[in-house]
C-alpha cells in the first residue's frame, strides 16, 4: 500500500495536464445558422455576480457530469443500501469513528499553521473521544464544549500564502480547487501510512476504506443536478470557492 501516495500524486498530475489540454470554455461565438439573442452581456455595464475564474470549465463540467453518473449508478445505490440495512446509531458511530481519525489531520495541520488553540482543542477531542468515547464511536468531547475544528493541508498551504488556484472538479471527490486537490493528496499520503501502522489484513483494510467512502457520501447531502437550477454548476463553483477562502481565514 506504500505506493498509494505516489499513485494519487500521479493521478492528480495527469488530471491537471488533461485539464490544461482541454482548455477553457468561454461562451462560443455565433455560428452561421445561429441568430443573436435579444439580450447579451455586452449591454450591461456592471460587475459579474458570483464570478469565479474557471479556465478548465469544459473539463470541470465533464467531470461534474461524470460524478453525477457515478453517484447515480454506484455511490447512491450503495449509500441507500447502507442506510437501509444499518440502524441510525450504528451509522452515527461509524461517522464518529472516521471523524475521530480525521482529528489527526486537523491536528498536524493546526500545528503546521502554528494555531496553538486549535491544536490543543483537537488534541483534547482526540484523547477524550478515543478513550471515553470508546475508540471514537461516540463524541463526548463536543458535549464537553470542545467543538470540532476543521483543518486540512489545503488550508495550511493557504495559510502560508499559496494561491487558491483554479477551480477543479475532482473525479468522485467532487468540487475543489487546485490547492485543495494538492492538500487532499498530501493528507491522504499521511493517512495511508497511519493506517498501515495498524497492520490490518489487506482484506480488512479494503473493507475499512470502503466503509469510509460510504460513510463520507452518506454524510453529504449534496446531489449533483438535484436543484434543477440550470446554473447549479456556477452556484456550486462559487460556494466551493468562497468556502475555501473562508476556511483559510479561520
Amino acid at each position: 500500500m506504500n505506493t498509494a501516495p505516489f499513485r494519487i500524486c500521479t493521478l492528480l498530475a495527469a488530471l491537471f495536464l488533461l485539464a490544461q489540454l482541454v482548455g477553457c470554455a468561454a461562451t462560443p461565438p455565433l455560428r452561421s445558422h445561429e441568430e443573436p439573442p435579444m439580450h447579451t452581456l455586452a449591454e450591461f455595464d456592471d460587475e459579474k455576480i458570483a464570478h469565479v475564474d474557471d479556465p478548465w470549465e469544459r473539463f470541470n463540467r465533464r467531470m461534474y457530469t461524470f460524478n453525477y453518473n457515478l453517484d447515480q449508478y454506484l455511490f447512491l445505490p450503495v449509500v441507500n443500501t447502507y442506510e437501509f440495512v444499518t440502524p441510525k446509531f450504528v451509522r452515527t458511530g461509524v461517522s464518529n469513528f472516521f471523524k475521530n481519525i480525521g482529528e489527526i489531520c486537523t491536528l498536524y495541520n493546526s500545528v503546521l499553521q502554528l494555531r496553538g488553540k486549535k491544536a490543543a482543542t483537537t488534541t483534547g477531542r482526540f484523547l477524550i473521544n478515543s478513550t471515553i468515547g470508546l475508540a471514537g464511536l461516540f463524541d463526548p468531547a463536543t458535549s464537553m464544549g470542545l467543538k470540532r475544528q476543521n483543518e486540512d493541508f489545503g488550508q495550511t498551504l493557504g495559510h502560508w500564502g499559496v494561491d487558491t488556484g483554479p477551480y477543479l472538479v475532482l473525479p468522485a471527490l467532487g468540487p475543489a480547487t487546485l490547492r485543495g486537490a494538492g492538500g487532499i493528496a498530501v493528507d491522504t499520503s499521511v493517512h495511508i501510512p497511519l493506517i498501515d501502522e495498524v497492520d490490518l489484513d489487506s482484506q480488512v483494510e479494503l473493507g475499512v476504506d470502503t466503509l469510509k467512502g460510504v460513510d463520507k457520501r452518506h454524510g453529504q447531502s449534496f446531489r449533483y443536478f438535484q436543484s434543477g437550477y440550470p446554473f447549479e454548476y456556477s452556484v456550486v463553483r462559487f460556494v466551493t470557492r468562497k468556502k475555501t477562502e473562508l476556511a483559510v481565514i479561520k
Partner: protein
Amino acid sequence: MKHLPLWLTVFLVLLPALGRSAEGDYGYPISGSYEATILGTPDALKPVLPRDVPIRELVLEPLPDLEKPRVFFYDKGLRCSFARQKTRAPLVFLIGGTGAGHNAARMVSLTRALYGAGFHVIALSSPTHPNFVINGSASHVPGDLAGDAADLHRVMRTAWEKVRDDIEVTDFALAGYSLGGTQAAFVARLDEQQRSFNFSRVLMINPAVNLYSSVERIEALLDGIPGGPRRIGTFFNRMLDRFVEFYQTGQFIELDDEFLYAIYRNRLVSQAEAGALIGLTFRVNSAGMIFAADVMTGGGYIVPKNRVLATTDSLDDYFQVGVRLSFFQYFDEFFLPAMRARRPGLTREALIDSLSLRSIEPYLRSNPKFAALVNEDDFILSPADRYYLRDLFGERTRVYPRGGHLGNFEYTENMAAMVAFLSRTDLPGGTAQ
C-alpha cells in the same frame, strides 16, 4: 436552538405564551418586513414535526413525447414529493412559490405537518421552477395564471393516476403559498369546471392578488441598490465583501443561521439593502426560469436562436444576463409576444387584468372552501390588496401583524392555522369522493 443563546431561546419561546389574551399579541418575534422575510422563523419557534415522514419522489411525464434539449440531460421528468398514509385519508396538493422546488424547505415543513395531521400529501414545484417549465408547462412560458393552472391540473391528474392504486383517499384539498397561493385559486376553479378532484378546501398562503402589481413591488426593492437595479452585480459583490469581513472578525465556524442572526443583530444591512437582497433572490430564480423557457422555445431571447447547447458549454453569460433582466422586460419582450401568438389581438392591459384574482372574483367571493393567510407587512401586497382579500373571504382571511413575505410561514401558530383550516369539516365545501 443550538444556534441561539439559551436566554434568547427561552425568551422567544415564552413570548407567544405570554400574550394569548389579545389578538394584538401575536408571538412571531421579528418585526420589519424584510428582516422577517430573510430570517424566517427561529428554530425554537417552529412546531415539533414528525421526524420519519416517508416522503418519496415521484417522477412524472405529464407531457408525453416531450423532446428535451441535450443541455437538460439530467432532467428525467417532473419531480414531486409524495407522503402516503397507510389508512384512508384526505389528500392535499401543495403548490410552491416563485422559483420553489417540490422539496423546498417550506414545502417539506408543510408536508410533514400535514402528514402528522393525517393527510396524504403531494407537493408540486412552482410552475416557475425550471423543472416544471421544462416538463410540466405545455407552452414552456410560465406566468399566465390560466395556462399555469391548466398545467398544474394536468400534473395533479398525472400524479393521482400514478398513486391512486396505492392509497385510499376520502377527499381532496389544495394549498399554495405566494404565487402558488394565487395559482391555487385558478386551479380550483378549473377543477370545478372539469369536475375532477372537487377540492373541499383551498388555502392561499401569502398570495398575490395581482401578479403584475406584486411584481412591480418586488422590482421596486431593487431601487435600493446604489446606482440602481442595473448595478445588481456590483451590489452583490459589495454585500458579499461586507459579510466576509464580518465573518473574519466574529467567532463563527459555520455559515449557518447563527451567522445570519448575527448579521441581523449587528445591523450590518440597511433597510434598503435588505430589500434589494430580497429583490436579488427573486432575480436569481427568474434567471433560471427565463433560461429554461428560452431554451425550450428555441432560443432568441438570451440564448442565440438555433443554438444547440452542449453539456460542457459554459452557461455563465446566460446566468449573468438573466439576473439583469427585469420582470417587466420578461413580460413585454418574451411573455406578451408568446401569449399574443396564441391569442391574436390580446392587449397588454387585458393580459395584466387576467393575471389577477379579480378576474375570477365571482367564483371566489364568499366561497366557503377558500381561506387566505396574509401578513400586514407583506411587501408584495398593497393595503388595497389586503383589504380585497378580507372582503373576498371575510373571517376566513386571517391577517397577521408581522411576518413579511412568508417569514412566519414556519411559525408554530401559522402552521397550526394551515393544518386547522385544511382539516375543517364544519364548513360547506366540495363533497367527499
